[in-house]
Structures are given as C-alpha cells and as structure tokens.
C-alpha cells in the first residue's frame, strides 16, 4: 500500500472534503443495508458489496465532469451512487421491484442511467472494458471532449479483451481511462496466484499507454490521479491506466465465506487503512468539521438509506406484462452525446 501523502496537506476545500465523506459514507451505509436486506431474503441472487473500496469511485467522480461516461462490472452499487443515481431506484432494483432502475429486470449487476451517463452494470468479467472503450470511440467520433471511465478489477485484468481494448484505444487515441480497482482478490484467488506481474498498471507500457499506481484507500490521492488522467484524455493524448489499490472487506459476493484470507488481514485493513476513517480524521484534525457536523452527515445518510430500503420494500413487483416488454426497441434510443 502506498503511503498517504495527501493527509498532510489536502489541496481541497472543507466543503469538498465533507462531500467526499458524505458520498463514501452513503455507499458504505447503503451496502450495509443491502447486506441486511439480502439476509432477510429481500434481495436475491448475486449481490457484490463495495464496502472498503469507496474512495476509488468517489475520488474519480470528483475528477469527472458533467457528461463524462462510466461503465463497470457487477460490483456496481458504489459507482451508481457516486455518479448521482437515486438510492431509491438502486435499492428497489436490488429487491427486484417496479421502482428499480431497470424495473426489476436487471438486478444488482445490471443497472443503467442515461441521465447520469452510467452504462452498466456488466456481469461478464472484463466485458465492460471494450464497451467503455467504445463509449470513448463514440465521443471521439462525435467530436466532443467527453472522457469515459472503464472500471474493472484485478481479476478482469487477466481477460484477453482488456488487452484488445488497450490496443485499439492506443492506436485510435481514445479518451478512455482504464481504472483497475485492485482489491487484491479475483473472487477467491489472491493476485500473486493469478497475475504474473505485481504491477498491473505497467501492462499498458507495451501499448504506449501511461499507467499509474494509486492508493485507493485515500480519496484525495485517487482524485489527484484522476484529474491527471482526465486532463491527459481530454487533451486528446489517448488512454490512461490507473491501478487503484484497494481492499474489499466483504466476500466476493454474499455467499462467499472468504476463507482465502485471514481475519487478521481484513481487520488490519479496516482498522489501519479505512478510507472513510481516514477522511474523517482529516476533517476533525484539520478542524474542517466538528464531531457534531459529522454526526449530522451520518444522520442524513441514515435517513437516505432507510428511505431507500422502505421504498425498495414497498415498491410493487413488476407487472407480469413486463416479462414481455423491452426485448426490442421500436425506435432508436435517444442518446446524450
């Protein structure tokens, strides 16, 4: 884990810090609630929680501008909340209800929002990487200066299509940031057992794509790296790789007992490297916020999350007719290019 350079001298305002704290805590509390609802049988199937990784997506969203696009894997709840999607719609999709983002037809792994430029939510490991590259292809074709974030994990980094994407993004200079969220376990397989090189960010080198290692437990470090990557892409320099070292506290999915790592390892990360605790200390020690201020934020978030759970429980199941809708489009979907 890289050291936390940013802690000493944060180059952001108190309000920004508080926003990151809010956004990260929202993801954590939301995910904890989702875990709870799963245990109650209200959420079914696969449910991959983002707890521990919050700084990655919040830091990168802080570097993004309106109109930038993002696409990710199945561990996607955090990304949706961070880009401003409605927690009610996300939670109701988890419970498979009419009020969910996909009317209950997508589930945890498949949600989308045109409005927020969120392109899924993909269940096949690595498949979102060429898709994200294609979003960037479209933006370059259309002549705007948008940037796309293609998020994937250290596990997906061993899929062939990732390198097919690197190659095309490099030869066509596409404005795509490949974000490798390295949580160190591809499901249950530790990186050293699955990945030939420890430094995944260097895998762009043969393609001429610059790469950078980032401390993913430090939201400001992530934001700073994100800004650099965004500037690179937006100026027409082509793709950029960020390997963001992070850690997932929970199992791969709800049914994972996580026997492949020790309790001590997880405890160590939670106690010494927690990204939310880190920013909390920064706020308090820098006198950017009082304990009461933070309690207020905690309370606001608790309300949002509880409301989303209520909404997700109360929203009706989709009508049976929905089985037969949205298989084919009648007209070309409007795009927000």
């Amino acid at each position, binding site marked *: 884990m890289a050291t936390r350079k940013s802690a000493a001298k944060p180059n952001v305002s108190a309000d920004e810090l508080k926003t990151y704290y809010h956004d990260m805590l929202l993801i954590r509390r939301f995910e904890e609630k989702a875990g709870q609802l799963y245990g109650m049988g209200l959420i079914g199937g696969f449910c991959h929680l983002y707890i521990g990784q919050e700084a990655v997506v919040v830091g990168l969203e802080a570097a993004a501008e309106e109109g930038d696009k993002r696409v990710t894997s199945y561990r996607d709840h955090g990304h949706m909340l961070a880009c401003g999607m409605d927690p009610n719609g996300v939670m109701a999709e988890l419970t498979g209800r009419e009020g969910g983002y*996909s009317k*209950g037809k997508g589930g945890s792994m498949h949600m989308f929002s045109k409005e927020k430029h969120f*392109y899924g939510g993909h269940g096949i490991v690595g498949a979102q990487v*060429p898709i994200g590259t294609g979003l960037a292809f479209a933006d370059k074709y259309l002549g705007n200066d948008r940037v796309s974030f293609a998020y994937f994990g250290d596990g997906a980094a061993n899929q062939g299509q990732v390198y097919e994407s690197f190659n095309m993004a490099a030869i066509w200079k596409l404005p795509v940031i490949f974000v490798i969220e390295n949580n160190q376990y591809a499901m249950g397989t530790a990186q050293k057992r699955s990945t030939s090189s420890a430094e995944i960010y260097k895998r762009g080198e043969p393609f001429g794509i610059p790469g950078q290692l980032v401390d993913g437990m430090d939201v400001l470090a992530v934001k700073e790296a994100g800004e650099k990557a965004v500037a690179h892409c937006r100026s027409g320099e082509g793709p950029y790789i960020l390997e963001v070292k992070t850690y997932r506290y929970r199992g791969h999915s709800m049914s994972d007992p996580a026997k492949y790592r020790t309790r001590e390892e997880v405890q160590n990360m939670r106690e010494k490297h927690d990204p939310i605790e880190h920013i909390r200390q920064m706020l308090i020690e820098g006198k950017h916020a009082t304990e009461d201020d933070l309690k207020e934020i905690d309370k606001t978030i608790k309300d949002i999350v509880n409301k989303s759970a209520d909404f997700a429980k109360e929203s009706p199941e989709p009508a049976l007719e929905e089985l037969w809708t949205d298989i084919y489009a009648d007209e070309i*979907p409007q795009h927000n*290019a």
Partner: protein
Amino acid sequence: MPTEILMPALSPTMEEGTLAKWMVKEGDTVSSGDILAEIETDKATMEFEAVDEGTIGKILIEEGTEGVKVNTPIAVLLEEGESADDIGAVSAAPEADKAEADAEEAPAAAEAPAASAPAEVKSKASPDWPEGTEMREQTVREALRDAMAEEMRADTNVYVMGEEVAEYQGAYKVTQGLLDEFGPKRVVDTPITEHGFAGLAVGAAFGGLKPIVEFMTFNFAMQAIDQIINSAAKTLYMSGGQMGAPMVFRGPNGAAARVGAQHSQDYAAWYAHIPGLKVVMPYSAADAKGLLKQAIRDPNPVIFLENEILYGRSFEVPVLEDFTIPFGKARIWREGTDVTIVSFGIGMQYALEAADKLADEGISAEVIDLRTLRPIDYDTVLASVMKTNRCVTVEEGFPVGSIGNHLSATIMERAFDYLDAPVINCTGKDVPMPYAANLEKHALVTTDEVIAAVKKVTYR
C-alpha cells in the same frame, strides 16, 4: 515439350476471371517469380507469377478477355531449345482439344445448373416495390455495398468497422469504395481482435452511434459471441428499456468452398435462438439490399448473415432512390400446390433447383424464402402448408436444433390437422465440414436430397 500456362484459381470460390493485363509479351524470357499477368477475380485484382523459367512462346488469351474459366490455357511457355514451331505439339494434344472445346461451349455451360450455380429463376411480381419499377442486374456484393453507402449518406452516425474493410476494400470486396467516399473516420480498419472490436462497437452504439460491424466471416464471430449476446442483445431488457445497441453485425456465413471445418459453419440457428437479436439471411441481391438498409435503420442489434458463394451472383434489383424490405415477411418465389419447400439464404438455391426439376416430373412445389429468421414469418409458411398439406425445409446448417426443427414443431402445433405427411428437414450433415471435395459436397444439403424428401412427403 512446351508448357501450357493455365488460368489459375485465385480464391476458394473462383470459377472464372478476367485476364486484365499481360505483363509479358511473346518472345520475353521469364523466370520463376516473374509477374506474367494481372488477373481480376470478383474479389480482387491479383498478380499471376511464373512458376517455370522459359520463353513466352504464344499468348492464347488476349488481355481484357472476361470470363476465362479456371484451367483454360492462356499462354505457352517454351523451354530452352524449343521454338514457336514446337507449339503445334501442344495444341494437338488431347488436353488442349478439350480445353478449346470447353471454351467454345462456355456460354452453354453457363446456363446449365452447375454444382454451385442456380438454375435461372423467375420471380413473380414482388410486393416489395411498385409494379413497373425499373430493374437492373446487380450482384449481391454490389447490392450490399450500395445499401451501406446509401445509409451512410443518410445518417452520419452510421459507420463501418472490421478487418480489412477500408484500405484493402473488404476481404470479400463488399466494402469496396466506401473508404474513398466516407474516409477513414467512418470506414475503420480494425486489428484482428473480434472480441475487442465487437465489444467496442457495442459501447459505440450505447454512446449514440450506429455501427456496422463486419466479421470477415461469422466463424470468427464466435470469438465475439459474448459481446453479441450478453452485451448487445440483452442490454435493452436489462436496462428496463433505457438503452440498447442499435447496430448491425454482418459478414459471410456458412460454407464457401473447400475451406474446412473451422471456416464453414452456418450460424443461422444459433443467432435465431436469442431474444433481443434480429436475424436476417437474404438470398437475392434485391433482398440483400432492402434488408440491409432496414437492418441499419433498425434500433436493435441485427445479425446479417451473408454468403460468400452468393456474393458474385447477379439478380434483378429495383432501381429506386430508396427502398427497404420489412423484417418478418417471407417471399414466395414460386407458387405451387403439392408441397411447400421452405428455405432461406443459400438454401434457396437447392430449393429452387429442386422445384424446377420436380415441375418436370409433374410435382408442383411452392417455394418460400423466409428472408428473416427473427422475426420469422410463420403465417406465410402455415398458410402455404394448409394449402399443400406437405412441407420440406432446406438449410445448410447442422440438423440438431435447426431452423427446420423449429418450423416442424410450429407446423405440428398450429397446422397438425392439415398435414398429410411428416415434415422433413433437409440440412447439412451432422459432421464437421470435411475438406475433400467429394466429402464436402455430401456434407452439405443437396438438390437431390430435397427432391427425394419431396417425393417422400408426396408419396411418389
């Protein structure tokens, strides 16, 4: 003894070509590797090299000659010590006689139904364009190219990407000329990276473009099938209708000629299986054009299955500024009363040949071209079967889980009482495609098998 230089076969499907230009003249000395001539196939212009060394004794086929059949002697090469006087020995040889005779008979041969050339067919007035519309002959290849060019002119967000589509002008010349007209931004050569560029194109479609993805053949699309099915076909549903992938995946599908098991598969039934995809498999050039234009305009992912052998085949195409053919409308190529033969794509060649031969024996076959496999025009098939009470299906794909199987089940469910015989499915054989010419011919469906099936269901 002087050596004959023969017209070479320069592609798996080449039967004849144009001797575009001689690069040598009589009396020139040539050695192995020298370029003798430029030969134009329907796909490309290729240089033809000398294999042996010697002197060009005589040029037998003038440059500019079209329709020179493969293996026709085009020149005579003299070895050291031989002179032009020795050439007589060659022309007196029995093989040469035969070649000349073949050349004379060439026009007649063209009319006969050769193994891979269909009998001429007469279509009835089409419901797809107004009566009296001017028609002109066009190859399927040209029709496909025109369809793309017209749609690219109409919508700047339509673009083509694939291997060799731009500078090479298309591996099968289907995209010929598009780079010149639309430039490299809209006609994009990709690396050999099917999974990658299929996924990239899905992303581009999500992002507001209308990609036409050319697979050099659909055999290579197996590398990309996850993106086609999991990403392109399912996203509209998974997103609750918020976004989908308006795009076309196109390219040659099925067997060409002698290209072996990994390059010869027909994927019609595979793709037709998938909700969220539309699947088109045209036979004629007019259908290829009208359906491809429709596919490009369709807001859904469309699988457009072409056929290498059909690319060079000419059909009448309406001369209209703009015409499309709707999906889900079969075409009745000939009406009949005794049996319904249902096919699509190159299968139509066997269906129509069989119908012609059956007519000579007094059996009247109605021949239906499905044209699209998703949606499928059940109504036209069922109405025909209710009239003829018998049905034979024809396709080149594997038998298990075939389109014919599906039609049989549908007919059984919806027209059981009308059937006077079980439906027979004529398909490719349940074997990987062999290379040997004789085995390959038998691995594919044959006209004789269609005729035999019709006789069986009509109890003749």
